[in-house]
């Protein structure tokens, strides 16, 4: 089934938050933010701004009736700065005016004086100074100290990966409308409506049931609207509550890129030990996560880094330690992969470094160490249905990797200024929120008396196609045409206490809850049908909108069944609740079974490098991916291709740079470049691994959002191969992204 939104999208009729028609008297908010990275606010002069045309009011922390606190996991982040500021872009006030234009003009008239303190932007420096957002954690398996003795080869190095801006095409948006009796309706571009609701309740000092958060769809999110959407919705709600007027807050791209958090940059050290026959016997990694000025989702992201420290490999002796370092940058946040890509980049760097020093291709080490069934991950979970090897072997044979490597070697020896490189990337990604409590979801199903169906869940549609998958689930259970089904907006008054749509788990969790709700209604309908045709419930089935008794068409249509059941006072509404079974994790031992299942795959990526100019192209990305029972090939292929492109962007052109004083230098689309149509690989080929999916995946179709992102990591190592073909003296640093600048400098040893 095609994405159910696609007709709305191609006609421009799909409604995003900024497209909602405004109520009369709507006011507009523009955020006033800190201009320095660290300091104390000495004075703020609003007097000129308040006299500007159209300005209604300027709100600061003193206007907050409840708590000035928006921290998601740890309570360490204010909505508006109080005495100190900790990053450039930290909100200090909100200007409310009769138009966005007037609010923007007033912003230029505000004068803030600061006492400037030293700013820290480097995570290792922060660690040295003892600036940690929360205590470090260590995951361990076996005994690393002993294992080093047994290793024939030991290599040590460091690997850094950069930040990444989400660049969801729709910026952060919120529209808060006051309703009767002190309640509010908030339209928010958020992945986590319940978090928005809870935070607004805390800031306004009113109960959660006074706030209805509604989300139709997002214009892209990628994790950037999981925690980071909350502040803007809360500000709009605060203003609407205080002024009793509808308030719109839509961040300009510039404000969005400066004020919101991005993917965490990491600086890491590794030590890898191998046996004579290339078994990895020991691996040690220390991750310095650049957390920014507040915890945001960093504790969970750091945790996932540790979970994925060994990627797709089994290593018997592991010690992985992570520090979340407090710096004077906007709090870094969720982004597709959620700390796992950063960990895998370090593991792959360690392997590449070992291979280079041993004078062998990296794939020999990769291939030797892939995880198998019954091998343990460092966090104690035992691998089951581990398809790492199947994916790898199939990639090697299907894509004739050996032949390709030979072709590349021949090509490279025949050309002077053009070189090619190939790298492989196995991926193993765990599915579930690592915080076990979040692995629950609810759904609410109404069948209306005309036979049409309305479905609400906690899932947010942000382009990933979750609503299409939900429709498939319900249509399958009732055996009705999908056109009978409408997926409603995600609304906290209809489905409460939702987990954010994140961790690739939206379709699994909400789909399972929906299955439960639909299943209960189906059961009642079967009973009703059995009565209608004087037979037993067990014989009844629904097929193509008709009631069957055994294999006989009873002549009862879906509509008749519904209408009759309604008259018989049978409930046609049902909520369903799902909690992922069998998962647990004990933080005191750092052991458990945190993931419902793992997703596997292997990518082979080939690049061409123009050694004269330092430009490069991705020739092909060929993947064997473990979809399970792919319930929607259109949507899942789209997710895979999009994730790969984003991963390639992270490894190549997407470079976030801050000045030493914490100012974002790549602060616009003219200085921060994401892939365009010319950047896309010439060939993207995907083969489905022919293995059934696990029970815990919705319709046994495995989660797809994040795992393919990490295939893009291969581009880094393929480029290194191409550089080395031109310049054998290339030292080979691990410092992503590998921009054209770094490539050219590497080609000529600068």
């Amino acid at each position: 089934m095609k994405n159910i939104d696609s007709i709305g999208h191609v006609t421009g009729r799909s409604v995003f938050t900024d497209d909602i028609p405004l109520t009369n008297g709507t006011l507009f908010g523009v955020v006033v933010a800190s201009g320095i990275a660290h300091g104390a606010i000495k004075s703020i002069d609003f007097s000129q701004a308040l006299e500007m045309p159209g300005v209604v009011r300027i709100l600061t922390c003193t206007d907050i009736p409840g708590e000035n606190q928006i921290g998601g996991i740890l309570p360490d982040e204010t909505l508006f700065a109080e005495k100190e500021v900790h990053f450039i872009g930290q909100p200090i006030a909100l200007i409310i005016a009769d138009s966005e234009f007037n609010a923007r003009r007033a912003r230029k008239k505000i004068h803030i004086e600061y006492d400037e303190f030293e700013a820290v932007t480097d995570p290792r420096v922060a660690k040295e100074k003892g600036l940690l957002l929360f205590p470090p954690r260590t995951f361990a398996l076996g005994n690393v100290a002993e294992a080093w003795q047994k290793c024939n080869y030991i290599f040590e190095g460091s690997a850094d990966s950069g930040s990444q801006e989400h660049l969801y095409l729709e910026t952060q948006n919120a529209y808060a409308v006051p309703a009767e009796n002190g309640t509010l309706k908030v339209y928010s571009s958020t992945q986590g409506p319940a978090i928005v609701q809870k935070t607004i309740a805390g800031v306004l000092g009113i109960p959660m049931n006074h706030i209805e958060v509604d989300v139709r769809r997002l214009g892209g999110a990628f994790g950037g609207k999981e925690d980071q959407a909350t502040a803007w919705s809360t500000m709009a709600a605060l203003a609407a509550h205080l002024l009793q007027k509808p308030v719109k807050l839509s961040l300009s791209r510039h404000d969005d890129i400066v004020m919101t958090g991005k993917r965490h940059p990491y600086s890491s050290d590794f030590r890898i030990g191998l046996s004579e026959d290339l078994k990895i016997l020991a691996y040690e990694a220390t991750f310095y996560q650049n957390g920014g000025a507040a915890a945001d989702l960093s504790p969970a992201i750091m945790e996932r880094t540790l979970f994925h420290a060994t990627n797709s490999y089994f290593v018997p002796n592991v010690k992985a330690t992570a520090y979340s370092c407090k710096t004077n940058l906007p709090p870094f946040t969720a982004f597709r992969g959620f700390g796992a890509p950063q960990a895998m980049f370090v593991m792959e760097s360690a392997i590449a470094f070992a291979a280079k020093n041993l004078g062998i291709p990296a794939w020999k080490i990769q291939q030797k160490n892939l995880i198998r069934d019954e091998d343990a991950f460092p966090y104690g979970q035992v691998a089951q249905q581990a398809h790492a090897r199947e994916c790898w072997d199939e990639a090697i044979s299907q894509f004739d990797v050996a032949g390709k490597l030979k072709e590349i070697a021949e090509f490279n020896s025949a050309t002077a200024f053009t070189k090619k490189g190939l790298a492989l990337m196995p991926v193993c990604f765990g599915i579930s929120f690592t915080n076990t409590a979040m692995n629950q979801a609810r759904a609410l199903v109404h069948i209306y008396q005309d036979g049409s169906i309305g479905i609400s869940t906690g899932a947010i549609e942000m382009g990933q196609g979750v609503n299409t998958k939900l429709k498939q689930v319900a249509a399958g259970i009732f055996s009705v045409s999908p056109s009978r089904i409408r997926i409603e907006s995600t609304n906290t008054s209809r489905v409460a206490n939702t987990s954010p749509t994140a961790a690739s788990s939206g379709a699994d969790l909400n789909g399972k809850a929906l299955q439960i709700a639909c299943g209960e209604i189906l059961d009642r309908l079967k009973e009703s049908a059995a009565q209608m045709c004087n037979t037993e419930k067990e014989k009844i089935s629904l097929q193509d909108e008709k009631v069957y008794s055994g294999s006989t068409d009873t002549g009862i249509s879906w509509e008749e069944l519904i209408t009759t059941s309604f008259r018989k006072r049978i409930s046609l509404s049902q909520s369903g609740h799902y909690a992922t079974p069998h998962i647990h994790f004990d933080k005191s031992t750092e052991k458990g079974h945190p993931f419902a299942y793992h997703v596997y795959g292997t990518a082979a990526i080939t690049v061409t490098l123009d050694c004269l100019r330092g430009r490069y192209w991705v020739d092909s990305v060929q993947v064997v991916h473990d979809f399970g029972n792919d319930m929607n090939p259109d949507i899942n292929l789209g997710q895979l291709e999009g994730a790969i492109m984003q991963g390639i962007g992270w490894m190549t052109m997407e470079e976030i740079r801050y000045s030493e004083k914490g100012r974002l230098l790549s602060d616009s689309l003219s200085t921060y470049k994401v892939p365009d149509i010319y950047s896309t690989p010439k060939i993207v080929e995907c083969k489905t691994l022919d293995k059934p999916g696990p029970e815990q995946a919705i319709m046994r179709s495995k989660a797809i959002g994040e795992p393919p992102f990490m295939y893009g990591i291969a581009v880094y190592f393929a480029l290194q191969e191409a550089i080395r073909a031109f310049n054998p003296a290339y030292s080979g640093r691990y410092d992503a992204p590998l921009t054209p600048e770094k490539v050219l400098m590497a080609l000529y040893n600068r």
Partner: protein
Amino acid sequence: MISAQGIRLIYYFYIVIEFILNEKLIRTDKPGGMPLVDFIRYEAGLTGTKIGCREGDCGACTVMEGSRSAGKVIYRTIVSCLTPLALVNGRHIVTIEGLNGETLNPVQQAIVDHSGTQCGFCTPGFVVSLMAQCLSGDTANLSKMLASVDGNICRCTGYKSIERAVRQVWELTRLHESSSTVAWMVEKGYLPAWFTYIPERLAGIGNQPHESPVNTIIIGGGTDLMVQKADDLMFGGIEKVRSSSAPGIEFRDGKCIIPGTCTVTELLESETLIQHFPNLGKHFSLISSTPIRNMATLAGNLVNASPIADLAIFFLALDAEICLVNGEDTDRFLPLKKFFKGYKQLDLQPGELVKYIRFSLPGRDDHFNFEKVSKRQHLDIASVNSAILVKINEGKIEKAHLSAGGVAPIPLFLAETSHFLEGKEITYDTLLRASEVLQQEISPISDIRGSAKYKRLLLRQLFIAHFIELFPRKSELSSLVQILQADEKH
């Protein structure tokens, strides 16, 4: 990107602005500096056109602009975020809503068929860009069809599904031959029937009286000015200099004369120019994107005085002359290389406008090349760009003009390197010695486009790339690899 200044001395300070928006005639007294996208979304309530960046870099706000030319209406894409309302007076503006029919048109259907939309926010922009390409009638070439969406960023799909959709559109349109593309597209369900009547409707509008403003802001394409100063322009008088009819590129006595109002697209469409610069399409595909090239003017690119201005670099190597005019005064000529005086400083008097540039067309022995490297190869600002013209006589360089951007406070004409090359044979020895001279002439700084060290290295590489591109058969040059690497060991 490119800001503008030009020569049309007609003031367009409207009390009322008239244009056709999709099917509807608009007469509005909104400020001429209001961004078109705001009018479309918040005044006309057409929310299919999205705001992604307001700097012309994402394409979510792409609309089509139809203007009259020789009795027909020519449609091009523009980004509505960088288009002040005053500039669309007398034009036909088509948004996604204007392309919707009772069923999906074949472009929309192709995107649905190939799942070329995920979150949907960028999608209307892609549809508009592709539809404009279909409307141009230039659909025979798949790579041109793909290039039509070079100004549209999609963050979800990774573009492969969009490529498949474009291929489907290409297969449907590539063989069509019709005297009227509009009629064909109406017949085939691409366009609503009312499109047929736009030429006559457009003829009757946009000629309303207007006043000469105080504090006029002279604007060409506005593609940099509107990025930097949109709010300041809101209530200013906008003086339009973008040419609306034939670009008027002239070729006389071996010289080419290009009016300042000429857009980059108009340059690209000049057949005579392409005859003299067969790689023009390749070179200019590196300059911004289709909608920006449709808007940005030659004068704007020069007057903006960016040290990295692509057109400035291009024409510096052609040793172009610039013609300036100030009201009724006589024209003032100066070599383009004298026009740039310092960072964002020009030899331009108050009130003076760029009338045209002129240069000698390359002869049979002249060889021209343009190089540009940026972080992203397309729709990006150069780290370093460079152009060269060399005249070869009896195996030796008789004349050389070399220019480079991003290596000095101004778009730089490399006089000493050019001089050094003259009278020399093209050998790697010559090139290496020339590149040493070149290093003395430049003074790059470290910034977001690259470190000073990188820019020095990159310019050396582009300098050598010029010769490898121009003289690929010179086998001696391929051994430059060893030389270049050996050079690094010192």
